[in-house]
C-alpha cells in the first residue's frame, strides 16, 4: 500500500490572519491519496475544502498561512521545499483546474498561446512549433472539436464548457501525477457538466493521474469518485469509499446532506429535509464537534469535546460520538438512520 501513496497530508492547519482575528479555515486534517485514484472532497462553502487544496500546492495568498502540519508528495515534504523545488513540483507534477472558467484564462491571449506558454514553461528545449503541435494534441484529448482552428480562438469566443476544457488541457499539459479540480462544473449547465465529468474519468484512464475533485454536489461525487472526504467547519467529518459514504453513512452531517437533495426518482410531496442553522464561525470555532450546534442528535459530550475518529472499516472513518462504544446502541441506530 505504502508504495502506492502519492500524497499524504498530516495534521494540516491553515489559518487566515485577518483584522477580526485568526480564521481557522482548516483545523488539523489528515488524509492520503493513492495513485490513479479519484477522490471527492465535499462540503459547503466555508468548510475549508478549497483552502485545504490550495495548501497542498502552497498557493495561499497573504493573510493565509499554513500553521502546522506536513504534506508529503511522493515522500517529500512540500512545506519544506525551496521555491525552486516548489516551482518544479507545480510545473511538472501537479495540475490545477479552478471553478471559474471565465476568470482563470487570460482574455487578451489566444487559447493556443496560453497552452504553449504552459508547455514551454517546464520544457525549455521544445520549440514553438512542437509546442503548438502538442497543444493541438492536448485540445484533442479534452475533446475540443476542430482543435487546430480553436488554438487561435480567444477565451471569450468560447462557451463556459469549452473554456473549462481548455483549463483541463493546460492542467494536463505537463502529464501531472496529481490533478486538482476545484468545483470544475459548478458554473456549468447539467448537460455540459455531464460531459466534463465524463472527461475527468477518461483523463484518469489516459494520463494515469490521481484526481482530487472538490465539489458541493453529492450527485457529482456519486458519479465520478471512488473515495469521498466530507468536510465541515475545517475538519474531516467522514471519509470512506463512495459506497460506504452513501449506503453506510457514519455521520449525521453526511446524512443531512444526503437528505437535503431532492430525489428525482421519488414521487414528490412532503417537505425537504433541511439542516437548521448555518455553519459555525471559524474565528471562534466551537470547542466540541463543529456540527454539534446544528445536529439533531447532539449529546452533551458533543458540545464539550471534539470526537476522535472511529474506524468503521479499514477504509471508512467518521468523527462522531454516536459511534463510541459507550454510546447506547439504539441512539446510534436512531442517529444514523
Amino acid at each position: 500500500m505504502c508504495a502506492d501513496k502519492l500524497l499524504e497530508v498530516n495534521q494540516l492547519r491553515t489559518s487566515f490572519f485577518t483584522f477580526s482575528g485568526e480564521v481557522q479555515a482548516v483545523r488539523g486534517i489528515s488524509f492520503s491519496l493513492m495513485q490513479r485514484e479519484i477522490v471527492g472532497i465535499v462540503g459547503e462553502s466555508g468548510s475549508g475544502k478549497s483552502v485545504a487544496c490550495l495548501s497542498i500546492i502552497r498557493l495561499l495568498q497573504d493573510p493565509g498561512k499554513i500553521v502546522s502540519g506536513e504534506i508529503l508528495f511522493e515522500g517529500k515534504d512540500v512545506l519544506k521545499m525551496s521555491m525552486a523545488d516548489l516551482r518544479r513540483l507545480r510545473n511538472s507534477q501537479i495540475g490545477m483546474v479552478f471553478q471559474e472558467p471565465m476568470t482563470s484564462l487570460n482574455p487578451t491571449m489566444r487559447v493556443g498561446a496560453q497552452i504553449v506558454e504552459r508547455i514551454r514553461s517546464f520544457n525549455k528545449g521544445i520549440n514553438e512549433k512542437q509546442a503548438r503541435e502538442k497543444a493541438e494534441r492536448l485540445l484533442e484529448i479534452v475533446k475540443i472539436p476542430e482543435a487546430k482552428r480553436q488554438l487561435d480562438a480567444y477565451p471569450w469566443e468560447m462557451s463556459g464548457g469549452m473554456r473549462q476544457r481548455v483549463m483541463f488541457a493546460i492542467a494536463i499539459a505537463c502529464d501531472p501525477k496529481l490533478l486538482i479540480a476545484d468545483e470544475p462544473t459548478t458554473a456549468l449547465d447539467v448537460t455540459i457538466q455531464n460531459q466534463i465529468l465524463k472527461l475527468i474519468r477518461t483523463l484518469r484512464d489516459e494520463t494515469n493521474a490521481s484526481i482530487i475533485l472538490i465539489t458541493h454536489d453529492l450527485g457529482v461525487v456519486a458519479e465520478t469518485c471512488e473515495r469521498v472526504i466530507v468536510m465541515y467547519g475545517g475538519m474531516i467529518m467522514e471519509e470512506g469509499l463512495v459506497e460506504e459514504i452513501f449506503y453506510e453513512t457514519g455521520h449525521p452531517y453526511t446524512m443531512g446532506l444526503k437528505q437535503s437533495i431532492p430525489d428525482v426518482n421519488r414521487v414528490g410531496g412532503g417537505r425537504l429535509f433541511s439542516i437548521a442553522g448555518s455553519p459555525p464561525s471559524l474565528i471562534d470555532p466551537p470547542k466540541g464537534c463543529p456540527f454539534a450546534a446544528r445536529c439533531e442528535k447532539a449529546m452533551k459530550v458533543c458540545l464539550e469535546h471534539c470526537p476522535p475518529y472511529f474506524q468503521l472499516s479499514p477504509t471508512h472513518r467518521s468523527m462522531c460520538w454516536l459511534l463510541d462504544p459507550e454510546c447506547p446502541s439504539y441512539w446510534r441506530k436512531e442517529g444514523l438512520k
Partner: protein
Amino acid sequence: MNEQNFIEVINLKKYFGGGGIFWKKPVIKAVDGISFTITKGETFGLVGESGCGKSTVARTMIRLYNPTSGSVIFDGTDITKLGEKELKPYRRRMQMIFQDPYASLDPRMTVLNIIAEPLTAQGNYSRTEYKDRVADCLRMVGLKPEHMARYPHEFSGGQRQRIGIARALITQPEFIICDEPISALDVSIQAQVVNMLQSLQERLGLTYCFIAHDLAMVKYISKRMGVMYLGHLVEVSRSEELYREPLHPYTIGLMRAIPIADPRLARMKQEISIEGEIPSPYNPPSGCRFSTRCRHVMDICREVSPVLKEVAPNHFVACHLF
C-alpha cells in the same frame, strides 16, 4: 384548459437588438413564440440551459421587458396592452425574487428601506404603517423585526435571500416569479429556503413561476413544468410525468444528465448524453432548434419548426417524432 387560468401566455415573443443608426444590429430571438398557462395557486416550473430564454420569459411576463409581440393575460386582463399608469395596480400583484442575493440588495440601504421600497413606489403609506408591515414580512420569512435597522452585509447568503423574499411579499402579491432563487446557496440552506417558499404558498395562496436549472429541485417544488430550448418551449407536462417518461429527445438528455446521488444507480445509468453545445442564438438552426444535437434527427426537422402538440392528456411536446 382547466377551471381558471390565472395567467395565460399566448405566443409571446421577445427579440433583442435590431435598430442601430448606421447598420442593423443583429437580432437575438430570445423568446420566440411561447404559450402556456398557469392556474391559480400552482407552481409552474421553467427549466432549460443558460441562454435558453427562461429568465426573459419571466421578465416579459411581468412587463419588466416589453414583449415584441404576443400577449400575457393576467387574471383576465391583457397586461401587454396597458400603459404604465394602468399597469401600476397590476405591478403590486406580481413580484419577483432574484437569483443572486448578493447583487439584488443595495448595500447602502437598511433592510427596512429595502423591503419597504415597493410600498414607497406604490405610494400613500405612512412611515409607522409600513414599519409594521415590514416587521410582519420579516417574521413571515423567519427573520426578526430587530433586523430592520441592519445592512445587507451583516447577513449570510440564506438570510439575504429571505430579505429578498420579504421584499417580494410586502405588496401582498398573488403571483411571484422565482428566478433561480436558490442556485447561489449551499445545499443545506437551499432546502430551508425551498421549504419556506412552499409554506408561504400554502399560507398565502400564492402562485409561483419557478425558474431553475436544477431539475431535481424544480420537479420537487412544481406541479407542472415547461422545458425550454433556445427560445422555444419543447415540452410541457405534469412534473412527475415529465420525469417518468420524458418524450422530447432534449428533455430525455437533460434528465439523464442530472447527477444521481446514488453510486450504484449512477453506474447503472445508460449513457445517453447530449453531445455538443447550445448553438448561438444569433444564428439558430432552421427548423427545430434542437436538430443540431438530436440523435433522432430527420430531414423534416431541419426545415420545419415543430409546434406544441398534445400527445397525452396535458402533455405537450414540440417534436416531429410525435
